[in-house]
């Protein structure tokens, strides 16, 4: 047998392996209830090309599948260190150990993985520095170390991973500045460094990174089930008629000959095609935009770009060069200590859909030309020190007061605070309302001062009897002269 797929059933017990099946190359046991260890029989299966036992069980060792190119052990209860034997799998180009309880430092022998393209270690308890061994994985396209306990600086050798497209280091304890070497990762389109302790300023060279959408880039893996299979009958069976035309069409896209059979757009466009690896092992990447994490895969991933530096200790001003990232869709700089103003260059971010600058020390006015950003769906500047008038035209008509909270000097109709006369465009409709408010406070202050003068006078007279007598004497005199004059006028 060459292919055995038992996924999505309710099998339990030990994994049956599989001494009769010496030629097995694709084995799918995912989404069952297997438990226990892999029996020794499996260790003879050195032809095995893909092994998916995710969502299943606790495998102790793996090391003898030296031809394995895909290994997914995600969402198990795996504990302890990664065994050094794993490094024997030097053909791996996809390794997913995410969402386990793995801990310890990554083995030094990780530098064996010369062909690794997709490395998913997120949501474990790994610790230590980001190991230097990773600097040897020069084919890496996607690195996800989120939600571990990695500490230390973002390594300077990061620039050696020059093919990186997705870099996710969020949710660790990384410190120090963002090294300028990050800027050499020019192909990166999604970068998430949020929820760390990164400080100092955002490097102004960040515009060297493309954050560019790609079209027709395969994000799928699974190595070549068909390319290497000499049996043409299998080839036709794996890919039904509907798919074949499309597969061959894909062939003509320049620079896209590798792994074309698993191109992710296939699964999007042909949901009915559900043959082994076509729609199966597509990469997906989690990224937060519009304030929640979404999982991007296939063509959606190709079209997604974003930079998330939120929840760090970044200070200084926002480099105006960020405005040159014309294809960026999501930009989150919230929860830092950034100061200065929003660079005017931000009006060049014509594809941006989500811009979050909340919880910083930013000041100055919100540039009126941000209304040119037609795609903007999320805009949050709350809890800063912004001042001036809030734009209300175009997209900005959609943003309510929650996006402006905690800025004492902002004004505009959105937050019901009237801008003073120095503002460039005072809202005409509220002028009358403004005078009414002034008169009201005037009346109140008059009444208050009148009352306080009376009370003060009474207290003085009550305290000092000499003044009291003098005062009433004076009053008597006044009354007397008044009456006298009145009588004179009346009876004269």
């Amino acid at each position, binding site marked *: 047998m060459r292919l055995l797929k038992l996924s999505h059933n*309710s099998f339990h017990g030990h994994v*049956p392996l599989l001494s009769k099946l010496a030629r097995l190359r694709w084995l799918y046991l995912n989404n069952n209830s297997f438990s226990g260890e892999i029996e020794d029989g499996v260790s003879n299966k050195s032809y095995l090309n893909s092994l998916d036992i995710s969502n299943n069980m606790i495998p102790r060792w793996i090391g003898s599948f030296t031809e394995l190119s895909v290994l997914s052990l995600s969402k198990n209860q795996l504990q302890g260190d990664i065994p050094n034997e794993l490094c024997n799998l030097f053909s791996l180009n996809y390794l997913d150990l995410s969402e386990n309880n793995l801990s310890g430092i990554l083995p030094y022998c990780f530098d064996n993985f010369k062909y690794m393209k997709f490395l998913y270690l997120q949501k474990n308890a790994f610790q230590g520095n980001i190991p230097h061994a990773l600097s040897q994985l020069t084919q890496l396209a996607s690195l996800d170390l989120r939600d571990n306990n990695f500490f230390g600086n973002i390594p300077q050798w990061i620039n050696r991973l020059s093919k990186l497209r997705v870099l996710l280091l969020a949710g660790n304890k990384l410190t120090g500045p963002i090294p300028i070497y990050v800027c050499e990762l020019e192909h990166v389109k999604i970068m998430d460094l949020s929820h760390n302790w990164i400080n100092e300023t955002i490097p102004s060279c960040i515009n060297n990174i493309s954050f560019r959408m790609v079209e027709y880039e395969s994000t799928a893996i699974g190595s070549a089930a068909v390319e290497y299979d000499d049996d043409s009958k299998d080839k036709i069976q794996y890919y039904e008629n509907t798919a074949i035309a499309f597969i061959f069409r894909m062939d003509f896209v320049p620079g896209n000959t590798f792994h074309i059979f698993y191109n992710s757009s296939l699964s999007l466009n042909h949901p009915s095609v559900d043959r082994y690896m076509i729609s199966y092992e597509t990469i997906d990447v989690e990224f937060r935009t519009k304030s929640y994490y979404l999982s991007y895969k296939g063509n959606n991933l190709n079209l997604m770009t974003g930079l998330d530096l939120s929840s760090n200790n970044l200070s200084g001003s926002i480099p105006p060069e960020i405005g040159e990232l014309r294809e960026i869709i999501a930009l989150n700089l919230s929860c830092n200590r950034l100061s200065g103003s929003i660079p005017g260059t931000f009006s060049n971010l014509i594809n941006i859909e989500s811009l979050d600058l909340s919880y910083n020390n930013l000041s100055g006015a919100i540039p009126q030309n941000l209304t040119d950003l037609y795609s903007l769906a999320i805009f949050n500047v709350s809890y800063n020190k912004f001042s001036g008038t809030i734009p209300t035209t175009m997209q900005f008509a959609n943003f309510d007061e929650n996006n402006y909270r905690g800025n004492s000097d902002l004004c505009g109709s959105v937050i019901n605070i009237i801008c003073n006369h120095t503002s460039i465009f005072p809202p005409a409709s509220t002028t009358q309302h403004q005078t009414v408010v002034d008169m009201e406070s005037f009346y109140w202050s008059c009444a208050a001062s009148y009352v306080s003068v009376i009370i003060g006078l009474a207290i003085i007279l009550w305290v000092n009897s000499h003044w009291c007598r003098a005062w009433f004497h004076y009053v008597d005199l006044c009354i007397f002269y008044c009456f006298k004059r009145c009588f004179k006028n009346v009876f004269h």
Partner: protein
Amino acid sequence: MELFLLFYLQLLDLSHNKLSGNFPSWLLENNTKLETLYLMNNSFTGTLELPSFKHGLLDLQISNNKIGSQLQENIGKIFPILNYVNLSKNSFEGILPSSIGEMQTMRTMDLSDNNFSGELCSHFH
């Protein structure tokens, strides 16, 4: 029902239609020369009843129907030279017959997306 008469029928592909009713086991019973049977993406129900004799079927693809219940224990003996079987996306349940391990020529077996259960210890040794 005319298919009864096609004694020499080798390949039958009725896939991607809206056929319903019980799984047509009589096709196998009556067409002893049948090698390839494609019934995927229909609405067949009932059970996968096997012929009463050893059958030379090579390729059986009945995925995405509503065929259910347990696989017959002697399936490995009835189809000794089957080399491609796809039963995925049906309603099969229960344990796998141990005779599956006897299908020496099997190359590809897809049983995914069913309700199979039980252990697999003895099947592939």
